[in-house]
């Protein structure tokens, strides 16, 4: 081809136009709002020079309605394509707020659906970088149907390829449901919002004044609603964290998670583990200290850190291999299980199960949270979700009982008969139908009623109960746990046990799908 000829010039002029379209003025516009440009985000996410763009030159559809104006720009407000992250193929779509506010028109939607289809076809993860004003009003129903198409593909891909949504700007109305359908949601503080109806509608309908930040900011979704799994101060840290999260996932549900070499010894004995759980059963401690000592140094990546903190969930590596950790947090509400922590745990377990990530459960739970509020809001059905998720999960499952393991919570937290592969206990474990104080008030009701000093008697009986009943040895002797282990050797034990389960497989019963109590 003659590079000075008309044919090549035509091609070049289009490339030039695309470049000017994303020129410094557009980038500045985003920067001035404290945000990065759609293309800068992609550059940060992917390995150098590895990104291949698709459909860069598509033009927007002409609206049937005749309302409003359409920008004459290439791409219809979204950049799509694929590239390598840490050397692995990943698909991406990145909404461009500088083109019609990143609004979702029919072409825009078609582009997103295209990468969704491609990702599912080749079994590769997909990341959505969301920064959009919502549906493109000018295009009417064409835009809405675009959303539906995206939702449908989200659902079709669910459990087959990892899907991650990164909210870097507004996501309002219908747009919020695509992130909600994906596996993990990231948000950036102060510049990203998610809500079904915005502050204006809230003001009109309810006459209540609320700011964007207080209605659907990153903090609210991380702490109160639990919609956002991760929040970060700025976009660079957010995108770095996306990369980090992705490093724990396989590309699809047939593969195993990737491996990261560690110089942490396989048989490292840690004496400190013996000292963290206090002798006083009512004393709190930080479960994360224990997690950090068990796993490969510095690999814990917590999920939903600020939501339902009484249950800690997160990903980590054990001898280089990814595991999912579910652990009661005695530091918060004594580690009790409630509605929110059940939901958080159940969702995380199902994700790990779908993507062949083995599960480690660290148990120190006084039971389910009593209370009218909890019962009336359906603690039964929500607690059942956690139970369901544990029971259904067919990945290798190991539990270590650190201290309290009482009643229903003992069953729920991956007990042996729920399908736990190996259940270990530390010598500090207390396994019983209920806590000593509760048990003795039932068992010795009469004696206590007669006593002159029931408070003292109750304490003495409880101490006796604790010593004689609430220990791990009865369960050990009856085979309800596999072994009582020295805390300092837990890491070694876990690595060996998980290795033995590498080929674990459970034939699922033939059914369309199970009916989790939603």
């Amino acid at each position, binding site marked *: 081809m003659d590079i000075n000829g008309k044919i090549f010039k035509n091609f070049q002029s289009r490339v030039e136009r695309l470049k000017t379209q994303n020129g410094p003025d557009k980038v500045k516009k985003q920067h001035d709002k404290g945000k990065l440009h759609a293309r800068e985000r992609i550059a940060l996410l992917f390995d150098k020079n590895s990104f291949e763009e698709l459909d860069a030159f598509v033009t927007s559809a002409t609206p049937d309605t005749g309302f409003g104006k359409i920008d004459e720009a290439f791409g219809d407000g979204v950049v799509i394509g694929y590239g390598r992250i840490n050397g692995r193929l990943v698909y991406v779509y990145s909404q461009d707020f500088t083109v019609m506010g990143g609004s979702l028109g029919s072409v825009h939607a078609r582009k997103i659906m295209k990468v969704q289809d491609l990702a599912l076809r080749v079994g590769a993860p997909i990341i959505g970088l969301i920064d959009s004003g919502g549906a493109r009003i000018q295009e009417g129903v064409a835009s809405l149907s675009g959303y539906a198409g995206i939702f449908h593909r989200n659902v079709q891909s669910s459990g087959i390829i990892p899907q991650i949504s990164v909210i870097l700007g507004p996501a309002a109305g219908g747009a919020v449901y695509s992130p909600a359908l994906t596996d993990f949601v990231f948000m950036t503080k102060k510049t990203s919002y998610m809500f079904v109806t915005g502050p204006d509608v809230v003001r009109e309908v309810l006459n209540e004044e609320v700011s964007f930040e207080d209605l659907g900011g990153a903090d609210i979704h991380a702490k109160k609603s639990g919609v956002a799994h991760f929040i970060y101060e700025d976009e660079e840290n957010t995108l*770095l964290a996306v990369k*980090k999260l992705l490093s724990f996932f396989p590309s699809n549900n*047939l593969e*195993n998670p990737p491996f990261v070499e560690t110089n942490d010894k396989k048989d490292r004995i840690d004496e400190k583990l013996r000292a963290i759980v206090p002798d*006083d059963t009512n004393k709190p401690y930080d479960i994360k200290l224990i997690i950090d000592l068990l796993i490969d140094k510095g690999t814990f990546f917590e999920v939903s850190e600020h939501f339902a903190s009484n249950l800690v969930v997160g990903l980590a590596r054990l001898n280089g291999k990814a595991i999912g950790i579910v652990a009661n947090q005695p530091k918060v509400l004594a580690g009790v299980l409630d509605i929110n922590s059940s939901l958080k745990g159940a969702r995380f377990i199902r994700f790990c199960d779908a993507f062949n990530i083995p599960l480690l459960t660290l148990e120190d739970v006084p039971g389910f949270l009593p209370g009218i509020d909890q019962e009336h809001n359906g603690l039964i059905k929500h607690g059942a979700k956690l139970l369901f998720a544990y029971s259904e999960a067919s990945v290798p499952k190991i539990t270590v009982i650190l201290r309290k393991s009482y009643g229903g919570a003992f069953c729920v937290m991956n007990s042996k008969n729920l399908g736990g592969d190996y259940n270990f206990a530390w010598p500090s474990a207390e396994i019983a139908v209920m806590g000593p104080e509760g048990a003795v008030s039932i068992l010795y009701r009469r004696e206590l009623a007669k006593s002159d000093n029931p408070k003292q008697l109750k*304490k003495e009986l409880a101490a006796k109960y604790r010593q004689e009943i609430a220990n791990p040895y009865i369960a050990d002797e009856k085979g309800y746990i596999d072994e009582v282990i020295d805390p300092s050797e837990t890491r070694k034990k876990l690595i060996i046990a998980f290795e033995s389960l590498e080929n674990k*497989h459970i034939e699922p019963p033939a059914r369309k799908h199970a009916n989790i109590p939603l």
Partner: protein
Amino acid sequence: MKKIKSILIANRGEIAIRISETAKKMGIKVYGIKTLKEPSAYYLQFMDEIIDFTEIISDIPEFLDIDRLIYSIKEYNIDAVHPGYGYLAENPYFAQKCIDEKIIFIGPTPDAIYKLGNKTIAKQIASRNNVPLLEGSNGNIKNPKHAKQVAEKIGYPVILKAASGGGGRGMRIVESVDQIEKMFKMAQNESEKAFSDSSVFMEKYVKNPRHIEFQILADHYGNIIHLGERECSIQRKHQKLIEESPSSALNDDLREKMGNSAIQIAKASNYRNAGTVEFLLDEFGDYYFMEMNTRIQVEHPVTEMVTGLDLIEWQIKIAQGEKLTMTQQEIKFNGWAIECRINAEDVQSGFSPYLGTIEKIQVSKGKTCRFDTGVTDGSIVTPYFDSMLAKLICTGETREKAITNTLAALNKLYIKGIKTTIPFHKAVLNNPKFISGDISTSFIEKDMKKLYFQEDDEELIAAFWATINHNAELDKENETYVDYEKGKIITPWLLNKRLKSM
């Protein structure tokens, strides 16, 4: 009186260790108490035998559980009990109970503890013996109205104090009439919580006074001597932070006058063993009796450093009936000693308690530097106890020398894992007013612009340290090699099963 062969130390932390060291030196067997709140505490390493209280189910804190303590002393056939400071040290009921059970209580008689512990009675003793006093309510304040009346009589500012208090709890200064009601209620409330006694009295509040106290030793044979003064003016909310001996405010005449007053109080109350008489000293050299503490004090080491005496040893000797072997004239004071209390407190946020684990503690002790500690590497700072961890005591021939030595020691004292009062001490010891000896109990509020010491470039160094660590972490994230290929290697057996069940 029989010779003591064994002692139960009914206390924890540094004082338990301090007592144990002297007792062991004297060939006495020491027993300590292990509690559920800190079952692996450092002090337990210094005991010959440990009595386990961890199984005890009681709402009463271990070191206040009189019945249990007495029971244990009998069970182990222990001769004596040393209460340290705080807890049961000034509880006349406990001291009496010991006598009833034929246990030697290392401290004064129950009668003396009672009389001197009740500030109203203590003041009566002082006034009867012509020891100067501050004007006050002469008894407890009954109600807010009464408080208002008395305050008007003696004039604002006034101070409200718990009748059976100490250590700053239950104390409130009232500047004007509009605060009196609120402050009275708070003082009562706090007093009730801390001492199970809501009685509160009032006295005139002296601005900018110095806190001067005299160490007393008295035997069973009427011999009473004082071991000089300690100045404890560096205090915050009535909690002492730095103590020294001698005081730069006293000359020999005043020392003799105040020392004699202290001895007068001890004599009048038939005092035995070690005790401390506290005075306020105003700008004009007039002093007022405050109270007498009937126990060993936290700050006793500064007296030990300048007199060369072991106060715990003398407490034990007196308790087993020995006579004082030195006269007042024979007591010589050598050099200067300064004590800094190392507390687990965050000076930058108003001295709030700082909890956590002491990862490492490093101190360079030496000829001029003594370190009395209750903690070691790995010790946990819990909310259950007082925030004081250790005491750094340094000496020098002169006050200047002592200050130089203290600063040198503070600069080599490193504690990792928690925040402490070290930066505060550095700030005080670098303060020109402190160096010149011009101090008062309001030194911290009035004469310190900044409560903690900072080198000029400290913030820059902090910024650099954060940045280089962040840089290293980002590099690590970017350079981590994720081996995806390894994840794809699945045994045919498993892959086959996986495929089939899809």
